[in-house]
């Protein structure tokens, strides 16, 4: 066996569409392909961007998010590692110290846990420890949350562990456009980013203008970063639903149903969990005076707790009712045939909206 035998090199030939440089104009992309495109475009403009992890090379990832990257950029730029998550993050740390921008994949949420020490004690702290002399521009992509009938350890909503850890930026897109822009922003960030991908959205689709998306990152562009910015996903005036990532679909559907019933619900997509966009969230809540926070993770000491705590601290006198939560129960994620009882759904959200003490307003 020669050195090259196990080492695919850049090829012309049939690359898969998303990794193609010539992809342009209006395109119907899956969420997954938008992520692939973001990595490919970043790799094309910056040779220090590397992609690695388990099964990301030849296979293109178990969700095919890295599909075609090895073929297009060669094994030196996108490659499989031994099966060891602490190893992956630790090696990424070293590579980032030495000028690279690693974009690594943890195969599923719970399989990032072996890397917890490297993430909390090094990745999160290096910039602070060195007074900014060493920044770690690492992106840790983690498919997360449920809704796909996955078995144990494959459906954890693990964001609380990361958002509580100072030094990490934590992002989670919920639209095809955000999948592209937020991943590009994450890769461009000098700080380490935990990039949480709601796996049930991988095959959701949208038609987007690829050129316009790319133009945001072109020379002279003044497009603002998505980091630190929440978006109003739907206007509404009676109450505010605050959600992100895997819970956005349920929040929007609940607002749709409520509209039909004459209740106007505003929906905020937090999307940047850290840094948190207090301004947008508080303005939204003040405008309605009522809020429900929706998240799939167990509720106890979670991102949802934080949002509730912040809102009541900052908007107390604008509130007509307590801020309520619709979250996962405080139990391990259920087996596939029970997850439907666990996931925050439209009915549970609407029931909770009903509890916002409407009689008093």
């Amino acid at each position, binding site marked *: *066996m020669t050195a090259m035998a*196990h080492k695919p090199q850049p090829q012309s030939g049939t690359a898969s569409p998303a990794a193609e440089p010539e992809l342009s104009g209006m395109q119907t992309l899956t969420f997954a392909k938008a992520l692939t495109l973001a990595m490919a475009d970043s790799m094309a403009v910056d040779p220090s961007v590397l992609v690695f992890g*388990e*099964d990301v*090379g*030849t*296979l*293109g990832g*178990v969700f095919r998010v890295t599909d075609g990257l090895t073929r297009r950029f060669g094994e030196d730029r996108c490659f*499989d*590692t*031994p*099966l*060891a998550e*602490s*190893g992956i993050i630790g090696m990424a740390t070293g590579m980032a110290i030495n000028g690279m921008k690693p974009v690594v994949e943890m195969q599923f949420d*719970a*399989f990032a*846990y*072996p890397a917890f020490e490297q993430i909390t004690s090094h990745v999160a702290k290096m910039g602070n420890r060195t007074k900014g002399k060493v920044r770690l521009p690492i992106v840790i992509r983690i498919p997360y949350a449920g809704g796909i*009938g996955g*078995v*144990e*350890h*494959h459906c954890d909503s693990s964001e609380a562990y990361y958002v509580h850890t100072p030094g990490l930026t934590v992002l989670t897109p919920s639209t095809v456009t955000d999948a592209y822009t937020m991943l590009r922003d994450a890769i461009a960030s000098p700080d380490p980013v935990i990039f949480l991908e709601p796996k049930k959205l991988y095959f959701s689709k949208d038609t987007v203008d690829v050129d316009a998306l790319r133009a945001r990152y072109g020379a002279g562009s003044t497009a603002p970063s998505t980091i630190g910015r929440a978006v109003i996903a739907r206007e509404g005036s009676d109450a505010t639903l605050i959600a992100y990532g895997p819970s956005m*679909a*349920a929040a929007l*559907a609940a607002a749709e149903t409520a509209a039909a019933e004459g209740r106007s619900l505003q929906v905020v997509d937090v999307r940047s969990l850290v840094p948190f966009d207090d301004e947008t969230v508080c303005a939204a809540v003040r405008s309605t005076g009522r809020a429900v926070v929706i998240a799939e993770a167990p509720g*106890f000491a979670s991102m949802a707790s934080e949002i509730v705590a912040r809102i009541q601290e900052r908007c107390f006198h604008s509130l007509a009712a307590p801020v309520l939560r619709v979250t996962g*129960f*405080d*139990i*391990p994620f*259920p*087996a*596939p*045939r*029970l997850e*439907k*009882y*666990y*996931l925050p*759904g*439209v*009915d*549970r959200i609407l*029931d909770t909206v009903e509890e916002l003490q409407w009689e008093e307003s």
Partner: protein
Amino acid sequence: MTNHPEFMEYPGNAGRAEGYLLPSEEPVQLIAADGSATGNDGYKEPYQLPGPATLVEGYGRLVMGRRVNEQANALVRQGRMAVYPSSTGQEACQVAADMSLRGSDWLFPTYRDTVAILGRGVDPMEAFESLRGDWHSGFDPHQYNTGLPTTPLATQLLHAVGVAHAAKLRGEDTVVLTLCGDGASSEGDFHEALNFAAVFHVPVVFLIQNNQYAISVPLIRQSVAPSLAHKAVGYGMPGERVDGNDLAALLAVVGHAVERARNGGGPSLVEAHTYRMESHTNADDATRYRTAAEVAQWVPKDPLLRLQKYLHDAGHLAPADSERFAADAEAVAKTLRDGLNTETVPDPAELFSFVYSEPTPQLREQARLLADELAAGQSLEGALR
């Protein structure tokens, strides 16, 4: 050779040179792929070909294992199960694990070891409950002295060490055998488990089913060591490598390791060379990362056909046995079909019952919320959206 006093006191080890920790120069094979006996020369131990009765029993278990894999693959295609990681082609490793253990011993398997789990006597429907998706597990580990099939890779190796350590402290002669894959050998927990086992000199046999792949990633990306069995040296325990498609060799090598552990000789590491004939699971497409030609090379090495040929040529396989084995396997297959085709309705109230031995006030509150929702007859469509 190792620094552990108990290791040195074990009669089999006394006076051994350090190199004994290294595996045999070639993987142990007692029956070749063509079904002929190969002799037992040149290995580090005088491994004996098991007797006909043992091999016939083993053959029956292989027949059962193969049938279970086929049936499960079919059921997953029919949507009766959430997922099935097939072990077609690897059954000999799992059968050898079972046959080397007593009922009072423990087995710690992975997600790919359903055949081994059934071989421990676990009720088939209990074994398949987690694969069907009704709950995370279906059997009581204590009833069968068998750990739950573990997904977070290599973590179960430490549980095996703990069970063995507890048994040793109580003076029991329990042996624990734990399975893992080639990929799992790269995880930190693999290292910590082997080291803890060696340092505490506990009776654990680590059996790596090296099936050449971790999903799509080939062995060369897990290790460039001469073999995975060489990892034993760094822990001060003996390593051995064996043809993982030769049940006779597996029984000899694993059996030797188990007896060694039982008699106070401490832990050891066995690497079985085998091949995953099918995709990683039904969700995987192996054609993306390996060629049909590569897979074809392994077809003639099949563990089942090899042993059948040997037993047949040696005149050990009575037609009545063959028929009985086929019938037994078919009966289990039918149990699986019937069981998995029967609609079950997992009870959502149980979601809150077992998180703590006594549900917390918080969980009682949440259970009431769900119960109220269900009582209000809310449509599942709503809950699902």
